[in-house]
């Protein structure tokens, strides 16, 4: 039986403003989906709401993980159930070393019943695994001793997110613009890395503006989100088209969604 992440007619508000207006999407484990859309379309909101960010309110609809609703689950419960979000803008946690952070995270995700204060995974085993994963991602071992995202360059932050993805091996991962702020070579490396750490075995939702990140992770499905709704779904070729020509054709064919999207991106609106 294949594992699924189902988003069913999802409506989401932030501080009273509607952002998502009925998103429906099913991802099976082993599939790669690209999610594209103009600024303010609700791409990042979808990632954050799937992970359970407290700022976002689901007003109707549901999110099912293997048939079970996770709407009431806290972010840590969702992580332990096998969900992962690679953040577009990860926050710094000063004073907390990457290695300590990863050891806690890996222990909790692998042992979902673990309570605070209970044993962490054995140090030796963890170190070996971390060293191997970092070598695979061509990362300097010193990286593990740095404080989480503290003083990281844009590229380092994205690589740190991929390292977490590699260590946690989730069932489903949402990658929110894991290519933004990177130069062409760095994007290629990121794309390669995601493939190497077994991205194809997960269910991937790749949020991106470009097609480079998809190079090594070819999507079976491409979705276009606009004005908080998925307005088109196609295959790999749709991603290529949007990358080449932009969103004008889609805007023309979905004037209502385009108008809604413009409302969202007005200066006083919350950017999503």
């Amino acid at each position, binding site marked *: 039986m294949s594992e699924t992440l189902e988003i069913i007619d999802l409506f989401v508000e932030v501080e009273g403003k509607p952002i998502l207006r009925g998103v429906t999407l099913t991802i099976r484990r082993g599939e790669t989906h690209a999610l594209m859309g103009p600024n303010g379309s609700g791409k990042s909101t979808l990632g954050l709401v799937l*992970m*359970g*960010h*407290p*700022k976002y309110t689901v007003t109707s609809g549901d999110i099912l993980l293997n048939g079970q609703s996770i709407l009431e689950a*806290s*972010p*840590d419960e*969702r*992580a*332990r159930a096998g969900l*992962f*979000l690679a*953040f577009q803008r*990860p*926050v710094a*946690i*000063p*004073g*907390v070393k990457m290695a*300590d*952070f990863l050891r*806690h*995270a890996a*222990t*909790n*995700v692998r042992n979902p019943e673990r*309570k*605070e*204060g209970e044993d962490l995974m054995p140090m030796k085993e963890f170190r070996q695994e971390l060293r191997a994963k970092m070598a695979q991602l061509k990362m300097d071992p010193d990286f593990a001793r740095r*404080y*989480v995202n503290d003083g990281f360059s844009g590229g380092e932050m994205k690589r740190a997110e991929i390292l*977490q993805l590699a260590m*946690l091996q989730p069932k489903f991962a949402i990658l929110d613009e894991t290519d933004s702020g990177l130069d062409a070579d760095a994007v290629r490396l990121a794309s390669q890395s995601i493939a190497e750490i077994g991205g194809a075995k997960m269910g991937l939702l790749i949020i991106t503006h470009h097609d480079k990140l998809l190079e090594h992770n070819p999507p079976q499905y491409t979705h276009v989100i606009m004005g908080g709704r998925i307005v088109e779904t196609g295959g790999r070729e749709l991603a290529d088209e949007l990358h080449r020509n932009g969103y004008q054709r889609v805007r023309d064919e979905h004037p209502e969604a385009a108008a809604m999207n413009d409302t969202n991106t007005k200066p006083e609106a919350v950017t999503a």
Partner: protein
Amino acid sequence: MAATDVIVNDETGVGEINKYDFRTETHSVFKARKGLDEDIVRQISALKNEPKWMLDFRLHALKVFFSKPMPKWGGEINLDFQDIYYYIKPTEQQGRTWDDVPAEIKDTFEKLGIPEAERKYLSGVKAQFESEVIYGSLKEDLAEKGVIFTDTDTAVREYPELLREHFGKIIPTEDNKFAALNSAVWSGGSFIYVPKGVKIDFPLQAYFRINEENMGQFERTLIIVDEGAQVHYVEGCTAPMYTSESLHSAVVEVIVKRNGRCRYTTIQNWANNIYNLVTKRAYAYGDAVMEWVDGNLGSQLTMKYPAVHMMEPGARGEILSIAFANKGQHQDAGAKLVHQAPNTTGQIISKSISKNGGRASYRGLARVEKGAVGSKCSVVCDALILDDASRSDTYPYIEVLEQDVSIGHEASVSRIGEEQLFYLTSRGMSEAEASTMIVNGFIEPLVKELPMEYAVELNRLIQLQMEGSVG
């Protein structure tokens, strides 16, 4: 008495997790009546067979104490000075081995992990229970090199000249009301002398335990580090929780001579019914280094500002202060640097955390005297507030009476951010675990300065404070 006589206190509801919160059934040898007057002071002095100069010193201090008003700044002190025991003698004499110590008291310190630490990584230990040091040890090779590590009462008898040269000279009786109180009724504390050029590799540790309700503990510590010598002194303090207040008021004087080095580390974990009003000051001479590492996690109210006076060129003073104010606690902690000579260097790093309505204040002084040209002074204080009910204040005083000096002051206040919590919880950490991780990260720059054993202890205590932090 057997170990079963140690009663775990669960009135506070934290008996299971707080290993420090237990009462020991004891039979004290002598217990002065409650209250403070000339008779009590004379009684303490007589019991200790003190020379007349010390009795006179005490009686004068008592007058100074009564004449000084309560401080109008800092925290609120609602203490009835006549409802406190000023002196309790727990045993007939000090033990040289733990087997000499009465079983119930030995058991108390076993529970606190002192004999074990002594075996593993300490050069010497003093354990004070109520008013007296009940156990003392010092590694033999250090004694042979002329190191003195004894309780201050013994020092009055055995090293009168060395003691008198410095006793009350760094912190005079008139300094403040609580220094005067300590001077009048002091008992116990450590006296340390490290001879010229002797470097002590492993820490000397003192452990202070208050057991009785309404107790006043007034230890008096004097540390003399001679030229080129080196010592790390560590003190820990705990007490069981009672519903009425107790008082801990110490005076600590430190002299670090030319090229000497002293580090004084405190991990203060008094029960939350204790007023902790302490005066600590060091004089550092030419090219000497004095470091205070001051961790305040316990007590109801702490008012404590360890000071370094840099007396001669090249002297260096460093103060690391960590304060954690939980429910019902006010940590008015800080530090003082006084540059009295040219080319002296001082640094204060303070980190405070407040939680569950706790209040943490940083109160500090950086003063450069006339003539102290070329001095450098840097003050950094960061506060982390964990919830809306808690409070943090900063009172930095900077007094510069000289040109051509470098003074830096930085302060920051932050709250645990929703985004930080979300990031960590999205990686499988529970909200409580995530908060603890953020707090540990916040104090990490200080904790990494500590020897491993104390870093572990401090992290454990923070963990304890953080438990149940998320409702």
